[in-house]
């Protein structure tokens, strides 16, 4: 799929953009408009970009972040593309702060001219170009144009804000319902309270320990609901893929990494640098530690790295599978194949709803496990302290 994408030109990309949303909207609208659109396209361009390619690109596009929030698009009778959605602010740092609306890109169809610079949206990334919008490539077909630092409020950022507000509203109202209703939750709280209690009693307490679990609870709860809600948003036909984005999972995993190591006890660091403890004399440890200590230190990085890759890969894979199965319906276009792939897509969708919850659980569970390792204090130390105290 990757190799294939690289061969697609920018004009095709624009086309794909449109096609992708159309494909998705077909779920909501009808198949007739799709077929018609496809004919139009072949008529216009006349070169053989087949349906399979379109589907691949549609899936790829769906997985990526976007600078505008498009719900779906369609083609009018006269061939004009109509987008339903809203533009988002683009914030660039390119020798000064540049803020403008993504409407200037016209969904990648035109260049945006800001303060005498021209910017082009190419593969969902913004490049600085000349007035003609030329993109230069190196040997491996990577654009060599200047890429300004992009701090745009993209679709994913919007979804993060939406999820954040939803969570704030949901859980602060749950908190209020306790004071109003004498310690008993009402409404949605009745659904969410058992989950909060599950995270406390079955994730935090057994993994971190009765004494220290409390200080980690806010992070565990926030990360669980944040990942779960965003995973669930990814199941909607709005084309949202926040938790399947490597930058998002990296940010989450780095937080887990930082919390793990900043709350690490003396025992934890002792274990990192002296994993065998007093079981060997010092001269026996040297040859072992040449291997062991680097492995232990590498483990510090590998743990959060596995977190970020796991969440990213699972969500990404789920979206690809569902996208492919939906795409299959249009490839088969038969009375047997299309309903079959619809049934498959439906079944996978149900599994994905489970995976959405499961991945949030695993991320939270493993974070709690790492916190547990880091904040662990061995029994013998307590005994030792007790002796000293006496």
């Amino acid at each position: 799929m990757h190799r294939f994408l690289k061969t697609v030109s920018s004009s095709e990309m624009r086309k794909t953009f449109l096609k992708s949303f159309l494909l998705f909207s077909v779920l909501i609208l009808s198949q007739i408009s799709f077929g018609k659109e496809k004919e139009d396209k072949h008529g216009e361009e006349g070169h053989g970009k087949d349906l399979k390619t379109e589907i691949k690109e549609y899936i790829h596009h769906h997985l990526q972040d976007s600078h505008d929030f498009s719900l779906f698009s369609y083609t009018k009778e006269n061939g004009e593309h109509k987008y339903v959605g809203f533009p988002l602010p683009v914030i660039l740092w390119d020798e000064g702060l540049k803020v403008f609306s993504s409407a200037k890109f016209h969904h990648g169809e035109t260049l945006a001219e800001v303060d005498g610079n021209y910017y082009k949206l190419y593969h969902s990334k913004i490049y600085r170009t000349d007035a003609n919008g030329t993109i230069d490539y190196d040997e491996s077909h990577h654009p060599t144009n200047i890429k300004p630092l992009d701090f745009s409020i993209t679709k994913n950022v919007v979804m993060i804000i939406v999820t954040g507000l939803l969570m704030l509203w949901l859980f602060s109202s749950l908190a209020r319902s306790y004071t109003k209703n004498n310690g008993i939750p009402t409404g949605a709280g009745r659904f969410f309270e058992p989950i909060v209690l599950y995270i406390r009693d079955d994730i935090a307490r057994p993994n971190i320990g009765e004494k220290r679990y409390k200080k980690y609870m806010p992070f565990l709860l926030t990360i669980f609901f944040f990942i779960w809600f965003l995973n669930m948003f990814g199941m909607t036909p709005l084309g949202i893929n926040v938790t399947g984005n490597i930058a998002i999972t990296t940010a989450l995993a780095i937080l887990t990494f930082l919390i793990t190591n900043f709350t690490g006890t003396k025992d934890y660091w002792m274990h990192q640098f002296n994993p065998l403890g007093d079981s060997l004399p010092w001269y026996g440890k040297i040859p072992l530690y040449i291997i062991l200590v680097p492995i232990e230190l590498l483990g510090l990085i590998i743990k959060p790295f596995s977190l970020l890759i796991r969440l990213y890969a699972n969500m990404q894979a789920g979206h690809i599978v569902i996208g492919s199965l939906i795409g299959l319906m249009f490839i088969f276009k038969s009375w047997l194949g299309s309903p079959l792939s619809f049934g498959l897509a439906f079944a996978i969708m149900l599994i994905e709803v489970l995976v959405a919850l499961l991945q949030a659980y695993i991320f939270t569970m493993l974070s709690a496990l790492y916190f547990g390792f880091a904040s662990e204090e061995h029994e013998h130390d307590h005994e030792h302290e007790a002796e000293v105290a006496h």
Partner: protein
Amino acid sequence: MEKLLEEFSLGLFFWQTLLFLLLLWLLWKFAWKPILNAVNDREEGIKNALQAAEDAKKEMQNVTADSENLLQEARAEREKMLKEAREIKEKMIADAKEQAQVEGDKMLKQAQAAIESEKKAAVADIKEQVATLSVDIAEKVIKGELSDKKKQLKVVEDMLGDVKLN
């Protein structure tokens, strides 16, 4: 790996970190803390209520046991009192009997003594009267006897005859 790096967007990373930390802070303050506190309070409340119920049950058991003991004691007390009362009654009866006996005996003795003395007095009186009567009769008889000479002699002879016999 190369693809991953290519996909990595610094801007998105920046916003994610910033917004997530903000969300974490806000939720911490306005949601998780009050929720966890409320749940904790509720659990404490339930625990305390259960403990109180347990205590009350124990208390109740103690009270039942106490009252049982009390009842037992009261019953024993009553038994004891009844027994004592019975003993007292018997003693009183016995005492009364004894006293009555003694009193009776005394009275009897007095009566006997009185009767004895009365009898003696009566006997003495009778003796005296008999003597007087005897004397009177003897006087009269003697008077009658002695009115005739023959008879006087006879008497003297009889009397002399008696004397001889003695």
